[in-house]
């Protein structure tokens, strides 16, 4: 089976179905409302013909016109939805941390798939970008049932490795998005807050909405190590040998300061920040997230 069974197991799907109603309200809360958009896209109602340019999907060629005129034209339709969402998933090495059964990346991918499932179920357009130093895999936001397998396929082919540069990924995403969209960043946000601010500023400048979903392991929250440990960085940082008990206080202080700075920056740009801890059921966490969104 399929990738669907890996990131969207039946139990989760059942739970997501139950959350459909909430999801709709989530989306509604994120966009301006349902109306016919002037934005072109793949839909039912035809709008106009346009001369083919390299990069257009061949299936969108109007073969009838091509046969009559011997010129390639593509058909353009009005999109029904007014929501385009791009989920930016952190695929860096730090997302590999976690127990063998569930790394942060697995949890984040499940979270992204769940969101995509929910939004596609609402006939919205959902895209995916898996980023490291930049966006390595990109699935443009689209609606429709076939988008989910494509989404899952991208996830399936991704694995956490390397260094992450969220700000580069945000710049990249802004450049790729043609229209105003909802950008959902799923990451551990182990990055400089100042650099993150630059990316968010760019995003906001282009009037995109931003939701930050932070995925953390319980160890990262509590630093529970006792024995002498050699911490080797998962993104190529220098290894450190220390007695964890003696640096724990400083670590916790640094972590809390970073989290607070992150929250302040998100608030400053009217972006939402939610934390997900991997030892918590994704269904519960998602339910809580959606409820909080409704409340918001």
């Amino acid at each position, binding site marked *: 089976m399929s990738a669907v069974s890996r990131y969207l197991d039946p139990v989760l799907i059942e739970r997501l179905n139950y959350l459909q109603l909430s999801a709709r309200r989530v989306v509604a809360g994120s966009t301006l409302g349902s109306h016919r958009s002037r934005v072109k896209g793949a839909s039912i109602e035809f709008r106009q013909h346009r001369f083919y340019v390299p990069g257009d999907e061949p299936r969108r060629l109007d073969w009838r016109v091509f046969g009559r005129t011997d010129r390639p034209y593509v058909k353009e339709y009005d999109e029904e939805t007014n929501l385009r969402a791009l989920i930016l998933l952190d695929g860096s*090495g*730090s*997302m*590999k*941390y976690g127990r063998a059964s569930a790394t*942060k990346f697995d949890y984040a991918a499940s979270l992204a798939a769940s969101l995509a499932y929910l939004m596609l179920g609402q006939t919205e357009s959902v895209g995916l970008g898996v980023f490291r130093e930049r966006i390595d895999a990109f699935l443009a936001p689209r609606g429709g049932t076939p988008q989910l397998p494509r989404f899952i396929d991208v996830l399936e082919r991704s694995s956490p490795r390397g260094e992450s540069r969220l700000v580069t990924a945000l710049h990249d995403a802004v450049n790729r998005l043609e229209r105003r969209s909802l950008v959902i960043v799923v990451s*551990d946000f*182990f*990055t400089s807050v100042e650099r993150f601010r630059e990316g968010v500023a760019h995003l906001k400048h282009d009037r995109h909405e931003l939701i930050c979903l932070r995925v953390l*392991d319980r160890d*990262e929250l509590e630093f*529970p*190590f006792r*024995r*002498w*440990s*050699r*911490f*080797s*960085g*998962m*993104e190529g*940082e*220098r290894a*450190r*040998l*220390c*007695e964890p*008990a*003696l*640096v*724990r*206080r*400083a*670590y*916790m202080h*640094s*972590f809390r300061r*970073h989290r607070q700075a992150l929250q302040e920056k998100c608030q400053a740009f009217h972006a939402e920040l939610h934390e997900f801890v991997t030892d918590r059921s994704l269904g519960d966490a998602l339910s809580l997230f959606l409820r909080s969104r409704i409340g918001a």
Partner: protein
Amino acid sequence: MTFRNPIMLVGLAAALVPLVLHLLNRARYRSVAWGAMMFLDGLEPRAYHGAKVKQWALLAARTALLGTLAVALARPVLPAGAAPPVRQGRTAAVILLDTSASMSLNDNGRVRLDLAREAVLQLLSPGMKRGDDVWLLPLSERDPQLPPLYATDPQEMARRLKDVSSASGQADIAAGLRQAVQLLRKSEAPNHEIYVVCDRQAGSWRGVEAPTFAAEWRAIAPPTVRVMVIPVGTEDFDNVAVEAIDLVGEPFVIGQAGEVEVRLHNYGAVPRSAALLDVGVRTASGRRVTARQATISLPAGAVTRVPVPITFTEAGSAVVHAQVTAPGLPTDKRLDVSAEVIKDIRVLIVDGDEREGTAQSASDFLRAALAPYRNAKRDTATVTVTRPDVWTPADLADARVVVLANVGSFSEAQSRAIEQFIWDGGGVILAPGDQVRAENYNAQLRWLPALLQPPTAESEAGLTALGAVEIGHPAFRFLKGRGEAAPPVAVRRYFPAAPRLGSDVPASYTDGKPFMISRGLGRGRVVLMTTPVDTEWNGLPLTNVFLPLAQSLVRYAAGGPSGIAVARRNLLPGNPIVADFIEPLDPRTVTVSVPGGGKPDLLRLSMARGDFGGQVTYFGTYAPGVYRVSPRGPFDLRAQHFVIAEAPAAESDLTPLTDEQWDRIGRTIGCERIDPESGAVTVAQDAYRNGMELWLPLVGVAVVLSMIELSAARRWAGRET
């Protein structure tokens, strides 16, 4: 430092356990692939450095904890100072117990001697074992024939300690230490100990503080001896004492005004505004007369002199006492002094230049000065005048003082008779003038206090005056309190004189030559004036000082026997009483009364009887107070009073030793000082002998270290929420 259980020092290896564990843990570290490195990398170098410091601090605390416990289990012992180690076997100990007068002080409700006895009892039990040689040596003037208390049973010594109940005299700790060393040499015990149980009075240690004592102690003290000093009582030094009674008007004459001067010393730092002074007299017959009662103000740390006029009504041996009511030692509040009262002063004036008319010759002036009333009861002296050519040695029998005024020469018999007269207690005053040739005097009167030179020539250049005068001399004491240093007496001529060895010069001329030279000879006194007492060579008889000078001079010259008697009758504890009687003595009738009303020790009483008198000697004078020797017989035998001083005046000075002095004493005799106020004597004694066990303090240190380690580990490595 020694260890009683050294095998446990092996446990010191346990101190390495934390280090080994630390290194093992460090070597067997766990590898963690960590995503949130930014929070570790972001830590400041100081945080990592601090963590390292904390690691090593915890490691040090754990290592020290285990090491301390291991050392504590080994029971380390810290030796006390430079004390020699204790050897197996018996102990010879000398306990020097201060029984001086200062130990009678009531210190906050407890008498110091009682505190000292308690300290000694603590030393004896359980510090001493049966079979140990223990000497107890009371430190004060005591009977030297009495051996120190000795016992080989501490319990017996404790019982005998109760007999040491009186405190008097002065303690000489240096002498006690010397005697203690001699006693220790008698014992073959391998351990030698000296304990000094005393108060904090500095005066008792004066001998130890002498510069030569340190070298002496190093030479005599055996290297194995351990010395421990246990000072008892407080450092209170508030005390008022009757320091002395000066018999100013000596000799005292019946019916004539005399004077004593009482010296009160307030040693304390607080002035006393209402000290009650009581001065009285006990006559030869035992009658008691009060001379003066007064309230005296005593400034702090000063001596106050109180003059008390006294008129005696009875001849013989009297006792003058002064008592003050004030805080401090009970033993120095009263002072008794034995005084001698004579019936009268008979003066024989041999005038070598007697002239017609009044106020011409020396005898005229002297008679006017000494017997102005021609009344034996009112006059200072009874005066008889004679010429050199008619007086015989037999004339000296009735006289107490002979004045040889300008007597030109003496026969051999006269000279010898005068010398004998002086030796027997008579007084001679010589005042040579123009009738005298110096070489004759030097040749004939070999007992003169000075060699005379020819007189100075009568000229303006030779005019001189009375210069330096020794106010303290009895002959010039009447000048005390006067503003002028010397009376204005112009002297035209005089005999320059060279004083003989042993002579005093109480007054000189302004050119430095002696005006008066005095000397004691036998029981009597000789006074040589280098200018006559008429108006030929000087204006002395016409000045206002002549009368008191003549009276004082005669009184002084007559006081030879009295002075000797006073000196022989005022004694220190232990000095024997020697009472001489010129009348035949029946030993059966002699009674000796001792202070306190007890019976005299007849074994210490001896009598010698001669044809013309006798001598009574009593040796048991270790109790201070008044002793009275009174024989009865066919003649008028007067009782004689002897006074044994309570304590030397220095004993009244309770000034405590300073810390510097204690340190110096400690260095000199290598002693350990144990203060009973700060801990039990037995514990200190054990610590001094065996050193101080350190296991308990070390366990305390271990507990503290464990608490530090726990709190540090909890604080530095504790889980935070």
